[in-house]
């Protein structure tokens, strides 16, 4: 079935869930390790870039209201370009979700389930993914909204709870590892805004096509605020975050805060919300893959595709040897594939498509 009744707030939640999941796993740590004490400056800098970028993308999509990037590429280059872009996006989504899945399962295994083989934890996630996708995309998107709100509340609680320990001077020296690392090499931290991927795919799903602008801008601003708060909390509250890579930033935040005096190990309680949000994320990744495959291959019924795609994600998640390998592959995938794809190639397609549109409708007065 086609998903076409997504309201504004549900679309915002769709985009947010991607970032929220990575926040709970490793994103703040990666940023802080690369930039040192200037991480907050760096994050504000890339947030501004990302917001400007989003505005540009919204403007470029204006002419093609109601069509996503695959439709635009078919307008530009016919079937060939559509197939290339579609297949590339499918492979991209499958690979990042499977790597993230492996990383998260390994994290869970280290923290709570020492003796369990990783394959059982992975099977839980894949099982839930299959069952959820059988029920269709609308229920996944609705559940995602609830999960997103729960996770946001949890995140805000964790940020607020380390406030007594914060020392503002940890953001000094202001330039961290140097101006070039902060501003030039620091551009690789744009991977934090991976949620832009969904922005390219969401227009046909919206029930009200004019809301795309609102959806895009609000979600990017909320993402930016969340990342700034997360990086700020982890940097300012702990002195060792610039040197030591602890397993999960949110775990670190939650285990070392004021709750710890009254409630022992509060992070176990919040692990429930992380697992829930991650399951929601895997459901969405599978759902997007199915929609893309349907578009590229023109099949009508997406249900038989559920099991193959989930099994591919499961198989790819088993490939890396251990946690560190998974993290390395993920990081290099983000840096070398994600940034060119999201910030260079896809916008280029949009720009060329806009040009072609202008050329075709050169004689129309309402171009």
């Amino acid at each position, binding site marked *: 079935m086609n998903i076409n009744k997504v309201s504004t707030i549900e679309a915002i939640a769709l985009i947010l869930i991607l970032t929220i999941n990575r926040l709970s796993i490793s994103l703040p740590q990666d940023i802080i390790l690369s930039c040192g004490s200037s991480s907050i400056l760096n994050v504000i800098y890339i947030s501004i870039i990302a917001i400007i970028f989003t505005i540009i993308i919204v403007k470029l999509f204006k002419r093609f209201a109601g069509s996503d990037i695959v439709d635009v590429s078919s307008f530009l280059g016919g079937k060939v370009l559509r197939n290339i872009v579609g297949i590339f996006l499918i492979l991209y989504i499958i690979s990042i979700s499977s790597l993230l899945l492996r990383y998260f399962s390994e994290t869970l295994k280290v923290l*709570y389930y020492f*003796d369990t083989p990783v394959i059982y934890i992975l099977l839980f996630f894949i099982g839930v993914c299959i069952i959820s996708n059988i029920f269709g995309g609308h229920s996944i998107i609705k559940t995602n909204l609830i999960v997103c709100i729960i996770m946001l509340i949890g995140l805000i609680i964790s940020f607020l709870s380390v406030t007594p320990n914060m020392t503002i001077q940890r953001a000094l*020296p202001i330039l961290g*590892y*140097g101006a070039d690392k902060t501003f030039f090499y620091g551009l690789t931290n744009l991977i934090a805004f991976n949620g832009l991927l969904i922005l390219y795919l969401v227009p046909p799903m919206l029930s009200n096509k004019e809301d795309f602008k609102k959806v895009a801008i609000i979600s990017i601003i909320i993402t930016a605020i969340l990342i700034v708060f997360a990086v700020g909390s982890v940097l300012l509250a702990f002195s060792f975050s610039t040197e030591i890579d602890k397993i999960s930033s949110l775990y670190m935040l939650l*285990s070392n805060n004021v709750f710890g*005096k009254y409630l022992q190990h509060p992070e176990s309680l919040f692990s429930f919300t992380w697992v829930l949000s991650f399951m929601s994320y895997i459901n969405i990744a599978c759902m997007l893959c199915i929609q893309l495959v349907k578009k590229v291959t023109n099949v009508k019924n997406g249900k038989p595709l559920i099991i193959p795609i989930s099994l591919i994600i499961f198989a790819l998640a088993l490939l890396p040897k251990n946690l560190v390998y998974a993290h390395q592959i993920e990081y290099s995938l983000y840096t070398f594939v994600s940034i060119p794809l999201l910030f260079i190639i896809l916008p280029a397609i949009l720009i060329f498509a806009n040009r072609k549109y202008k050329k075709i409708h050169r004689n129309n007065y309402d171009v």
Partner: protein
Amino acid sequence: MKILTHFRKIAIIFLSIFIVLFALSGAYNTQNIDRLAYVIALGLDVGENEPLKLSIQLSRPGSTKSSSDQSSDNNIVNSVECSSIESGLNLFDSYISRKINLSHCKVVVISEELASKGVSDYAYTLLNSVEMSPHANVIISKSPSEKFLNSSQPILESLASNYYEIALSSSEYTGLTQNVTLIKFFSDYVDTFRNPVAILGAVNSKDTNSLSNSTTNASTDMASDINKDSSYVAGQTPISSKDNIENMGLAVFNGDKLVGELNGLESIFHLIVSNQLKSCNISIPNPLGDSDSIDVNLSLKSSTKNNVQFVNGSPYITSNIQLNIKILSATEQSSKSDSDYFSDENMKQIEEACNKYLSENITNYLYKTSKEYHSDIDGFGKHAVKYFLTMQEWNDYNWLDNYKNSTFNVTVDSTLKSGYTFL
């Protein structure tokens, strides 16, 4: 059609067998709650034959119906000589019937001897573990840790874990020590802005009481005369009771090695300067002459403002302290309305006496940390970092080494707020 339904039945049967096998496979990490032994306190000593002597304190869970067993029955301490914490716990697993679990460990006790050799490995190992709670307190014990653990008898509680939790938060109202947790210790150790401290503890028995006058501080007579009761170090207070543990004062580290200790009074000064004091009671010399000293209750009026400037390459540290005073003691003379403490003149005199007393002693304390211990435990480094642009420059300057060249200027401004029921 028939084949499809037939296939569906087979698929459902296989799926249910798979799920049942999967669920009952037993490969999951189920630890039955009563198959675990929960360690309450961990003790680290220098071993005779091995690098480390590990002691653990367990508590036997009493039955629900009996009201009070002998607390000594419930307190079980075992020690083993081993080469590292993990191998020691492994040895214990084979000796004690249940599996050792550190998730409820409240206290880590490290002996003085081991601390002077360096505790960084142990700190990293303990924080690497998933079970260990980062909010466990770190105590440096002047006696061997095994003796410390053996002597810790809860007087008013039945569970030793309760005792540790309550006892170590007494610093909030006495100020004589500080509630240092494992994560705070580790954070301060890794920090380039400061050096770590830990709680100083010891066993208070009749032998240590006689050391009451041979304290380690070489501070002025005024301090030791007037505040003799606060100037003890752990284990030396003349309390007559059975052997029991006592936490007073702080242990000062430079890096990960123990370099010195602070007595109770100096801990109060440390809390004042680093802006962590809640409230405490000390005595100040009485300018009015009706008694030797006045007991006052101190609390911070606003946060202490520290500042660092660089003069000729050395740090010049200023500290601006604002306090609220409440007078606790009362004499016959002071309660009479004509010469009570609260006339304008007398108030000014008391405040000035307090300022003078505190600024002198705090300056002495700061010079002690700088010249003797070379250890910046008050965290002045964070005020010095604003002069540097990149982390490379800051690391090259190496604040912690340069602390020993610093000079201090302390100003105290106290305000007499009130007394108690005698006005």
